[in-house]
């Protein structure tokens, strides 16, 4: 069965430091992969998505992610974080040809001054 694993439940990082949020997926078929951000008391906002093509995907707010098929990973990175990046980040997968998004359990990014 398809699943998405976010290895870190919380990631504290100092402002202006780089950050990587890890995501692994399991699927025997092609998948589309997504990263969403959720600020307190708000819905989810799409940061970036991988459908096909280049394995390095650039998104909004300076975030990027790299699709690694051999390691079944889709880690999210940002070279320099800001206080405003403090939020919950969700990785999600959609198996090609299906309708059902599978979300990970989320990673809480806390940026420290």
């Amino acid at each position: 069965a398809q699943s998405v694993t976010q290895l870190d439940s919380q990631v504290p990082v100092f402002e202006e430091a780089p950050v990587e949020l890890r995501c692994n997926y399991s699927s025997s078929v092609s998948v589309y992969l997504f990263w969403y951000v959720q600020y307190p008391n708000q819905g989810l906002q799409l940061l970036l998505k991988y459908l096909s093509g280049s394995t390095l995907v650039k998104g909004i707010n300076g975030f990027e992610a790299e699709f690694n098929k051999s390691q079944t990973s889709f880690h999210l990175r940002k070279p320099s974080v800001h206080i405003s990046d403090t939020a919950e980040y969700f990785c999600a997968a959609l198996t090609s040809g299906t309708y059902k998004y599978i979300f990970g359990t989320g990673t809480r990014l806390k940026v420290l001054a």
Partner: protein
Amino acid sequence: DAGVTQSPTHLIKTRGQQVTLRCSPISGHKSVSWYQQVLGQGPQFIFQYYEKEERGRGNFPDRFSARQFPNYSSELNVNALLLGDSALYLCASSLGVGGADTQYFGPGTRLTVL
């Protein structure tokens, strides 16, 4: 342009009651999906509707039902509420149902069951 809107924002019910949540998609979007997000967890897929037809259903009991209207708005109905139904219910809209169609999420309805 208005984003996805949901009503009400908050709701308190007691066990055994019924609740109806509403969602208005972005103008031009024909697909609406519903998700349940329990505190501390990722969203869980409940339903997807496209052109007023159910296209998919997640692993939820029959107490959960939904429908989509001709104007593409949608309602999620939950009968015989249980304490475990307490969650944030998210609605997402998209142009279509393909993976290339980005889902845009509303702010959610927070349901508390006492």
